């Protein structure tokens, strides 16, 4: 009896809610597809992504109405004053029923002069799923001083964001988070400030390390896990900043020295080799190949002492052989891309986990492309890396790049999805975009990380997304334990093994 009454009340409530949505009537038929924010027109999405709510780009729109129809005629309706606000369960059901299919989206907007209906657009549902979520740092796009920041994880199937660690929990800054191919069990996290440390979570056990040693330049940053999980490649950098007086690029972040090291988690040793620690050369951004037998990195000749000609800093894309059995390196460095010869700089190499591609960022010069508006993503098939690349333009990604910065990127664990940060919305605040890379290496139009109310969310967010990386499951990070470890003075000292 009570149950029936409950359902009656619920039905009445739902009817009331349904009655609240206004039906599209006497709409003027427009000949173009709608201008919406985010631009989800003709994007390819994974079937497990959160609802792609969108708003009309025209902020004066009084209502936005969307009807999504699949090939079998099933429909999903969303309407709202600001955003479409699709029902989460219905959305997932629709996507699950249309894996590999196409959805048609008909959008109507109520403007001051009445309803307008636009030409429908498509959303393609890929057969490739995306990982559980992404982890990233959120911070203001500042210079030297930092305010509140933290490392967060976002469930890609919902709008749920969880803080893993925030700098309200200690006095300092948090950066350089890294997981082994998206597996959150193994994690490296760097803390700067009075309580500086590198937090390593190995198989669930968390410990704070001092990575700075007498024999190395300083603390370890830019981590990249070896696929087998035993090693972590780091670079150690003396990083500086200078500020442009006029340029559109506000700031130049550069290294005055940097070297590469590989940490052996079994022996607690940082493995160094003279070939990767030359004074005249700066090595940075290490990344292991999919088979773990090659270490990709970027290398530039150092500027003469006292020089401020930072536009002469050009990083080449290089590789060196690595033997995971004994943690030794090859005896020569191969230059894969001589970006210096092209008058460009190549940074942040990221090999796909299936071993098919190497993705990197190209900019005009320097080491930190996130502050370069001209920075773009490039993707090279691994088979093209057997010999040095002479021309690079054919590798520039055609669809994902814009006039604004496209930079820090990572692969999903199945190597079919790409996450990267872009400043395309306003030229300053980096936002996360996802693009599908199919079996032929074709990229698709990227889509912005979905939000419940995207316009409100992104308008109000004054933080930038930083270093996004996929995670295959919730990180389950014990931040209270981390807080204790960071606050405690004990640090496990990393040793050094010189080759």
């Amino acid at each position, binding site marked *: 009896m009570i149950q029936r009454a409950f359902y009656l009340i619920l039905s009445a409530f739902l009817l009331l809610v349904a009655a609240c949505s206004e039906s599209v009537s006497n709409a003027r038929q427009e000949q173009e597809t709608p201008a919406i924010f985010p631009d989800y027109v003709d994007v390819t999405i994974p079937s497990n992504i959160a609802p792609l709510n969108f708003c009309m780009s025209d902020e004066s729109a009084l209502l936005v109405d969307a009807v999504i129809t699949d090939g079998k005629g099933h429909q999903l309706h969303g309407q709202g004053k600001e955003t479409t606000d699709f029902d989460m369960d219905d959305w997932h059901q629709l996507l699950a029923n249309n894996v590999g299919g196409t959805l048609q989206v008909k959008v109507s907007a109520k403007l001051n002069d009445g309803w307008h209906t636009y030409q429908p657009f498509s959303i393609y549902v890929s057969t490739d799923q995306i990982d559980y979520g992404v982890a990233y740092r959120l911070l203001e796009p500042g210079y030297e*001083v930092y305010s509140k920041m933290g490392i967060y994880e976002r469930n890609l199937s919902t709008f749920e964001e969880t803080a893993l660690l925030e700098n309200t929990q200690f006095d300092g800054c948090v950066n350089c988070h890294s997981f082994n191919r998206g597996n959150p069990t193994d994690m490296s996290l760097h803390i700067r400030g009075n309580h500086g440390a590198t937090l390593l979570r190995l198989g669930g056990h968390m410990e704070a390390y001092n990575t700075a040693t007498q024999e190395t330049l300083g603390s370890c940053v830019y981590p990249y896990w070896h696929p087998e999980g035993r090693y972590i490649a780091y670079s150690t950098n003396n990083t500086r900043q200078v500020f442009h007086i006029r340029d559109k690029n506000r700031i130049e972040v550069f290294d005055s020295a940097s070297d590469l090291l590989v940490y052996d988690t079994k022996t607690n040793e940082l493995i160094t080799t003279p070939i990767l620690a030359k004074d005249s050369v700066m090595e940075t951004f290490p990344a292991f190949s999919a088979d773990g037998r090659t270490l990709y990195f970027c290398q530039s000749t150092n500027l003469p002492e006292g020089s401020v000609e930072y536009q002469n800093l050009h990083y080449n894309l290089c590789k060196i052989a690595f033997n995971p059995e004994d943690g030794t390196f090859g005896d020569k460095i191969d230059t894969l891309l001589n970006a210096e010869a092209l008058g460009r700089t190549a940074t942040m190499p990221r090999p796909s986990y299936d071993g098919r591609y190497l993705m990197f960022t190209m900019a005009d010069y320097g080491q930190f492309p996130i502050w370069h508006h001209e920075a773009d993503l490039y993707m090279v098939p691994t088979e093209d890396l057997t010999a040095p690349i002479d021309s690079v333009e054919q590798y520039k990604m055609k669809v994902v790049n814009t006039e604004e910065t496209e930079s820090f990127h990572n692969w999903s664990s199945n190597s079919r999805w790409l996450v990267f940060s872009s400043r395309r919305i*306003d030229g300053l605040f980096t936002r996360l975009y996802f693009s599908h890379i199919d079996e032929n290496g074709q990229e698709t139009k990227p889509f912005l990380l979905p939000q419940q109310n995207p316009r409100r969310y992104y308008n109000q967010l004054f933080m930038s997304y930083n270093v996004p990386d996929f995670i295959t499951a919730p990180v389950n990070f014990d931040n209270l334990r981390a807080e204790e470890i960071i606050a405690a003075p004990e640090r496990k000292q990393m040793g050094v093994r010189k080759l």
Partner: protein
Amino acid sequence: MLGKCHKKSKKKLFVLLFPYLCIQFLRTFPILMKHILSLQALLSLAFAVGITCFFALLYPHHLHFQEQFQLFQFDWNYACETMSVPGGVAEWLGRFFVQFFLFAWAGATFVALILTAIQRLTATWIKEKSLYALSFIPAVLLMVFIFDENAKFGAVCAVLLSLLAAWGLSKVRPLWFQVALFLLLLWPVYWIAGPVSIIFAILSLFKLLPALHQQKGLMWSGSLLVVTLLFVGAIPSASHHLVNYQLIRFYYGLHYHNEWQNAPKLLWSAAWILSLLPLLQFLFRKPLTKKASLIISLSAYALTIAVGSWLFQSNYSAHNEEIMKYDFMARHQQWNQILLTAKEKTPNNPLSVTALNLALGMHGQLSEHMFEYRQNGLAGLLPSFVRDPVSPLTTAEAYYQLGMINTAQCYVFEAQEAIPSFQKSARCYKRLAQTNLIRGSYEVARKYLLTLQKTLFYREWANETLALLGDEEAINNHPEYGRLRNSIVDQDYFFSEYEIPQMLGNLVMTNKQNRLAYEYLEAAYLLTGDVDSFIQCLNLGQEMGYKTMPKHFQEAYILLWSRDHTPNETAPSHISPNIVQGMNQYYTMAQRPGVTNEALARQFGRTYWHYFFANIRTIK
């Protein structure tokens, strides 16, 4: 016609009623005086008026200072975010009031109202009338607490909310319900007010324990005490599991003070005194004789006045108020006001000197009058960057007015990032919107402006500025933005604090109308004693429209000239004879045996020569 009739009848009615109303008022006035305007109420009123006048007239810039480091928004998300931590409601309320601090009288009135409300609520816990004066002590402590520029007004609101909760609970009946409600409210009141909600817990216990003991016995009252202690101890720790802050902050208060590493002493003194005041009722159980009452009353007043005076003296800082005043005037581009203030009293703080030099420069008087005031080298012209929220803001004003928009933007951004409470600043948002607008980054400017639209006092400005976005013609013709756009250098290079004169020189070469940059350039040379470079740039002055050589330039010129010429030689004609004579007198006096620096300063302290020989090089 009808309106006129209506007016006439109203007038008639008023004429008839007025005498009656007057009589009634005179009859009820003594009763009003007796019941409403008692001595206690009058004292509270005087306290409120005193606080208002103090903050509005003597300490207004402390209020302005607080306001500039927050960005209160009428926005649901903002409210939820602020209230999502323990003490968040008090913090939100504090920020709400602080937005009025932009206007000193409005801010001072709110401060007075809240402190007086705290005093009146405190008084409700003092049963013995002769001790009424003691009810002022917590409010005075809190007033002095907000003398500290790092103290947050939300903390004062937290005390008020705790007192209100305790007062509200004391009105609840029956006892069992009161006890249940008390236990239920412990956590919510902690969440609303933060750890000073201990006031609520202790004051309520003073009411509940004796009543419970009387009605139910020791077992019940003892149990309540134990449960309360457990709750009070556990709540901060439990909250730590919900909100990402260091554990200690849940005990000290998340948002009470910017230096959160230590518990703010004045605030906690107020909280503990307030909590323990009801103990006095145990000392004064028996009715007092008139004489004893009078003595105690006078002693309480004496104690309150003594404590208040001591607290006031030890925490009042005219020095800080002066710095904040200069910063406020620079922020609002009150250049005349700065000059008037400096004439009354020469500023001696680097930040104030920076603001003064900027005001002089904006009036084209830097070259005429800068050495009439205390100077401290380049640090008083364009200070080096410091990682705090205060100093870069004044410096950024100078860079902004000079046309170094990227640098001004960087300084403002960094200042905002350095706000210890992680809040954003309306002042910074405004300036960041402006710098982005000038640089043509309209989408970024828009983002800042949309947020400012949600404020009470910046909304109008934001709306006006939003209309400018993308309108190149309007921006180029804007008296401020157009001028600053024209001042931006043509060639890019990297900012360097060690190359200030070179950067100023670039500004001058880019725009020969940028007289401020020229004055700063020459001032930089004079302040660093680089007289040769100063002379090299002198000719530029004619191109910049100087009809005659400014006073300090003449002083510097004749100083350099005197190095290679004897006093008998005739000085160049463009140097005023008075300046030449002054220089000769200065040399004569300076070379006199036994003459002190102070004596030289008395006579020549307003000249470049004195600055040069006192700070750069000793006289030979």
